[in-house]
């Protein structure tokens, strides 16, 4: 062995001959190309995002562009923004929260709590009745990105079921869909989802279907209870026993109420409203409402009860315009006006009261959520014509049980004609629409 050999290490051939090296690298790159193509085809599965520009900010920007530019740390950025959003939430700065939610879900489309919370703020905390469709659209985006778990189906179902929308027909299929999907940890969806299926059926007057649903829930709880007993899991035994009992109670309650309300439709009651609308200042109206034919209500315990009247002041073509521009938040907030007050009480003497006074205040001169926002941003009043709607819907959840005892599950105890009109699922309601001009408000 020579000195030169030592310096170059033993066993020299001094490297692979160039043609062989090129051939080897070329073969390896063919392999790399094939593997890369396979990975590219499947990559979307690991980060699926809605790519519909109509769905708002978080979908209109190419997620993968921004995501990639974050060097794989976008989840961290999302987490930091989420913490910041939480701080704003605790400070009550709800309006400022929304862009944060959009950004967090844009960075990490699987943060399901952010979708829920964002939709919650849009529907409830901002006090802006125009934003409910935006809220459900945000949840739709979340569902598209997290379609295999129950959470966001349920969240959207709840939002549609509760007072912001009261759309039981739309809520029911969402609860049914939610019940089919597992939780984030792979466990079955919680049983309260199936409770909501029954509740949504009741609000559509499908009482027999709801009773059958409660029976299904009871059967499921009993099966789970038996399983827990076999495995001697005390926590599960107690949990499923309680679940079974809750379902049994709900089923029995429905059976009792069904019998009690059997004759409601046979003795229909005619209810009408008279209203006097007075302008008390710019953007401030006083509405005095009296009901005729509204019976004195008593609940199952013999306590006095009363009904709830909904008051809406909106652009005359609000529903049509809102549907036309449902994906254009900017247009909606700049052009549409909707004031909604839902807990006005129909007293036993027929007077309607708001906060214990016999007058409903339509206050479009202040921020409904006390956020210091300019009222003109929430009630822009850009149309010439408006309508004031007074509505009594027996089927909605915010009505006390005594209302359904008197008027039936879905208002079947209201006499047709007059101010009675038919709503979804054949439900009956009393509604009076009063046209207003811009001058009547400003």
């Amino acid at each position, binding site marked *: 062995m020579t000195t030169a050999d030592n310096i170059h290490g033993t066993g020299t051939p001094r490297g692979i001959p160039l043609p062989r090296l090129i051939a080897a690298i070329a073969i390896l790159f063919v392999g790399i190309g094939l593997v890369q193509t396979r990975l590219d085809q*499947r990559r979307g599965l690991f980060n699926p995002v809605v790519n519909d520009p109509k769905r708002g900010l978080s979908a209109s920007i190419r997620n993968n562009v921004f995501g990639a530019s974050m060097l*794989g740390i976008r989840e961290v950025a999302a987490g930091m923004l989420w913490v910041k959003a939480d701080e704003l939430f605790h400070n009550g700065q709800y309006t400022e929260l929304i862009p944060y939610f959009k950004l967090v879900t844009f960075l990490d489309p699987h*943060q399901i709590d952010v979708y829920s919370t964002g939709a919650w703020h849009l529907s409830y905390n901002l006090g802006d009745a125009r934003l409910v469709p935006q809220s459900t659209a945000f949840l739709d985006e979340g569902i598209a990105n997290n379609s295999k778990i129950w959470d966001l189906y349920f969240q959207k179902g709840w939002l549609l079921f509760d007072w912001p929308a009261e759309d039981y027909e739309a809520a029911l299929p969402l609860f049914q869909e939610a019940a089919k999907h597992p939780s984030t940890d792979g466990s079955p969806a919680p049983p309260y989802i199936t409770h909501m299926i029954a509740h949504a059926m009741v609000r559509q007057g499908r009482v027999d279907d709801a009773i059958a649903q409660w029976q299904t829930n009871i059967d499921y709880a009993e099966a789970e209870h038996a399983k827990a007993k076999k495995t001697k899991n005390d926590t599960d035994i107690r949990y499923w026993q309680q679940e079974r009992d809750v379902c049994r109670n709900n089923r029995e309650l429905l059976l009792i109420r069904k019998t009690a309300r059997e004759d409601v439709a046979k003795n229909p009651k005619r209810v009408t409203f008279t209203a006097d609308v007075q302008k008390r200042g710019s953007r401030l109206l006083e509405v005095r409402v009296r009901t005729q034919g509204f019976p004195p209500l008593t609940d199952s315990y013999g306590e006095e009860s009363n009904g709830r009247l909904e008051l809406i002041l909106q652009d005359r073509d609000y529903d049509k315009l809102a549907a036309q521009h449902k994906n254009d938040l900017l247009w909606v907030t700049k052009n549409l006006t909707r004031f909604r007050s839902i807990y006005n009480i129909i007293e036993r003497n027929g007077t309607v009261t708001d906060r214990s006074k016999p007058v409903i205040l339509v206050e479009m001169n202040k921020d409904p959520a006390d956020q210091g926002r300019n009222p003109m941003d929430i009630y822009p009043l850009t149309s010439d014509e408006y309508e004031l709607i007074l509505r009594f819907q027996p089927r909605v959840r915010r009505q006390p049980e005594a209302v359904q005892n008197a008027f039936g599950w879905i208002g079947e105890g209201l006499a047709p004609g007059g101010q009675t009109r038919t709503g979804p699922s054949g439900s009956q309601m009393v509604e009076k629409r009063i046209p207003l001009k811009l001058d009547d408000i400003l």
Partner: protein
Amino acid sequence: MNIWVIARSTFGEAIRKRIGLYVVFSAVVFLILSQLFAQFSTGGVSSEIGGGSRVEITIIKSMAFFIIVLSGLVLSIFLSFDLVPSDVDNKTIYTILSKPVKRWHYVFGKFIGTCMALLMNIGFMGVALMVLVAIKSHQLEWPLLGGVLLLFMQFAVLTGLAILLSLVVTRNINVALCFAFYLTGTVSEFWQSIAATSDNPLIKLMVKAIHLVIPNFYNFSFTNTMVHLEKWREIPNAAADVGWAAVYGVLYLAVILLLAFTIFEKKEV
């Protein structure tokens, strides 16, 4: 045998450098601090809808993966960029190569030794991540370990690249190039998105070439599905994709090491 001796010696050298110790210590401290960070988000509506702890775990995991990526990046570059040049400067390379050691044994041994040190450090952080998550969620999430091992594969490729570059460029340029390759390789999808908006076939071809030639470090990042394990469970045969990403890493390492062996064989030292 020669490879193993050189690898062990390189591993010992890496441990003595203490950079790994500092980085890992800092990383573990930050991992623990991420718990505090996560606690800020326990209030609000999320806890009311029963998701408070889920948000916490999400934040802990995402912070932890970020810390592991950052530490791995620093470690892989700074443990390997100076391996061969320092041996040349100290003249220890002459002692090694005068023994019956093939040159590729030397390069491969250096690479294996550095990877061992890297695996130890990243593995330690991965275990810390699993423990922290287990404390919060009361269950061991094994897929997290797969995610951490893939990150190790990513940094093994970067280590190979740093060793290869150390044979042809100076130290400073090597470090700069490593960061540049990492950035370019991580935003590979970005190039593709640009190409998708272009009508020029030449640009499309160039971008495709970059996508295939520059090591695509994004292939090794499954962070989002690791942070949201429900997504992992949803994807049919997801483990196979991890396997293919690992195959990609092995193939790319083969190219890098083949080039490194050839260059070092021809290098005058």
